[in-house]
């Protein structure tokens, strides 16, 4: 019983020490709480999710019957194109495109209606000048929408001519079929059955929260053991009757408290100020956050146990952040990566946490509950790796297996001959 009590005292010694040290650095506390909160606030207030429409020039044939008002063509792909000019000079338009004065140039063929009447397909030439792959894809989408609308317009014109001929030859009873109906025989009535609205803020807020939690946990703990290893405190631990489990437990508890304190502030701001939905209630997200914090601390503490300088620890922590931004599904969907790279994604705790938090907060249920186990598994794996590494460091080369020293925590202690 005495040994269990003393073991608890040793754990709390690290807990108290870490909390005191952090409290003595108000800058860190402010960064911990205010930093993530400001990130969330800026993101929520500043990100619209609406992409700027493509600045577009339409080139019509000189004798075209198509309208030459920009508003008409903007209406063909609403929100996607901003028609700055309707002209008749394709060379001048191409030069403007190369000069990046416009984003898109659409050249309508001279005889589209005529070719359709003759049963031939006309060719609309569309050009853009993009190196950003995302905008390249979006330009294609905008063009596809607009060309489809232009096709509809041409069909409408030809159909109107056809109906005029039919009325003349077959009588007015044929007029119950309008040219618009012929050109566009179906329309779509859309419904999103998701339990929460698909807004940019709602979708990204849980992901930002997960990223902030992991980053907080990693950066807080990444320096925790480096200083102790470099400044000789590890020598004291080697001689003192303290085990690796006790050191790690104290560190985990202290940094978990600090991380969760900051997370609570950010989470409350997200839910009560930015009105992000929390359909599942608090319990499930809290569980996910605890697991993510556990795993994040594991990354940080392991970094602090392998880094040979504070600079290296900071660099490794930043590397984890960069990898998390790219591979966690935060920016690019995990499914877009090839198999082996997806494996990298799933090694990152934040990948699972983003999916789990989005499901629980925005949909109210987990569609991939195995991710909870994966998150816990990653956390445990990192904990045992850290324990292994710290045990080796504490052991030095002279201290015998820690197994003997761990026994008292769990019960039967082997008495020393000196007692």
């Amino acid at each position, binding site marked *: 019983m005495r040994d269990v009590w003393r073991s608890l005292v040793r754990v709390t010694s690290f807990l108290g020490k870490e909390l005191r040290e952090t409290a003595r650095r108000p800058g860190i506390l402010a960064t911990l709480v205010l930093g993530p909160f400001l990130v969330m606030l800026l993101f929520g207030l500043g990100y619209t999710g609406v992409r700027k429409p493509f600045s577009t020039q339409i080139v019509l044939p000189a004798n075209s019957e198509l309208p030459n008002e920009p508003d008409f063509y903007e209406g063909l792909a609403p929100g996607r194109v901003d028609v700055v000019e309707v002209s008749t000079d394709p060379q001048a338009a191409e030069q403007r495109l190369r000069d990046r004065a416009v984003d898109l140039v659409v050249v309508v063929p001279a005889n589209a209606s005529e070719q359709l009447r003759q049963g031939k397909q006309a060719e609309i030439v569309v050009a853009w000048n993009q190196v950003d792959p995302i905008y390249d894809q979006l330009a294609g989408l905008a063009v596809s929408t607009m060309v489809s609308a232009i096709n509809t317009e041409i069909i409408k014109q030809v159909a109107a001519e056809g109906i005029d001929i039919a009325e003349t030859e077959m009588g007015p009873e044929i007029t119950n079929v309008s040219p618009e109906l012929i050109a566009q025989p179906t329309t779509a009535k859309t419904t999103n059955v998701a339990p929460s609205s698909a807004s940019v803020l709602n979708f990204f807020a849980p992901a930002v929260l997960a990223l902030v939690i992991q980053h907080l946990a990693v950066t807080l703990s990444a320096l925790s053991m480096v200083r102790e290893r470099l400044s000789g405190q590890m020598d004291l631990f080697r001689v003192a009757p303290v085990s690796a489990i006790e050191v790690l437990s104290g560190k985990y508890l202290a940094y978990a408290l600090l991380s969760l304190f900051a997370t609570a502030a950010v989470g409350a701001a997200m839910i009560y100020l930015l009105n992000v939905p929390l359909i599942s209630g608090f319990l499930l997200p809290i569980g996910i956050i605890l697991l993510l914090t556990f795993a994040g601390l594991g990354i940080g503490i392991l970094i602090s146990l392998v880094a040979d300088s504070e600079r290296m620890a900071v660099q490794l922590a930043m590397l984890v952040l960069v990898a998390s931004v790219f591979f966690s599904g935060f920016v690019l969907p995990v499914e877009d990566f090839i198999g082996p790279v997806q494996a990298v994604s799933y090694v990152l705790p934040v990948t699972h946490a983003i999916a789990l938090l989005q499901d629980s907060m925005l949909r109210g249920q987990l569609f991939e509950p195995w991710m909870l186990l994966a998150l816990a598994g990653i956390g445990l794996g990192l904990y045992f790796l850290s324990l292994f590494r710290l045990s080796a460091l504490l052991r030095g080369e002279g*201290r015998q297996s820690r197994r003997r020293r761990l026994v008292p925590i769990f019960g039967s202690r082997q008495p020393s001959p000196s*007692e």
Partner: protein
Amino acid sequence: MTIASLPSAEAAISLEGVSRQFDGLWAVRDLTMDVPPGSILGLIGPSGSGKTTTIRMLTGTLMPTAGTLRVLGQEPSSFSIRDRERIAYMPQSFSLYPDLTAHENVGFVAALYGFSWFGREKRIKRALGMVDMWDKRNRMARNLSGGEQRRLDLACAIVHEPSVLFVDEPTAGLDPMLRQSIWQELRAMRDEGRTMLITTQYVGEADYCDNVALLADGELVTLAPPEGLRRSVFGGDVIHVEADRAVEPGVLVGVAEVTSVRQPAPHQLEVVVDDAGAASPRIAEALKAAGIGVQLLQEYQPSFDEVFTQLVSRQREANGNAANATGNGNGNRKEQTPDA
């Protein structure tokens, strides 16, 4: 080199034939000595002589390449929790937390040894009081002077009231006043019955120790009480004589207790005797009988620096001769050990 152990029924610290190699180079070689309970053993030697390596082996951080060590009867590599609770280690450099107060630092170390918040306050007060730091208990460690930080280190080392303390260079870089003050504190702890092994580069600090082990190039040069250390250099007490004219050493031939005579200058003699008190009158009489007037006759107390230099020179000379005899040289010695 093996030197006879100091007489002790049951040594608190014991080394027998202890050696340690790093990458094939010897940091410590064939060290044998005992430290009686309740005494201070000063491990004195220049930087890189193997002092910290010896302490690390004794605290269980390093394994010896050869030989056996015992602290309180236990092999350091198999210390139990109880054994560790009875020893303390004060590292060479300040190793506490700068953002904690002196009180919090001592409290943290007390908690490492399992003393809960309720039980440790008295111990903290006593430890800080012993090193005269109680009044500065609320100051951040980073705001303490170098000497105060060393004393805080010491307070942390004694807060759990250990039986054996390993103290590595407690006075390094401190001014003479602070060094004296720290030694007073260490001797006060010795007077409470604690056994201490203290390393230092300052040869003059040998006087504060009960026994002194002189290390050079990883080898034990000599192990003796401070007074015995002086005698071991000259082979006995030294009497310094200044005559009123040139004097031949031969005038003292036949004087009882005179072991040897050296003549540093024509008017001066340095006479080695077994007991300076008994031999002084006889030397004075012999000189008077030879018609030589004595201007000064007094016991010569060589400084520990001089003693140390003499002993190390002899050791190196002996090693050199031995190496020349075997043709091996002394190239196996590590120039810079990790404890340097």
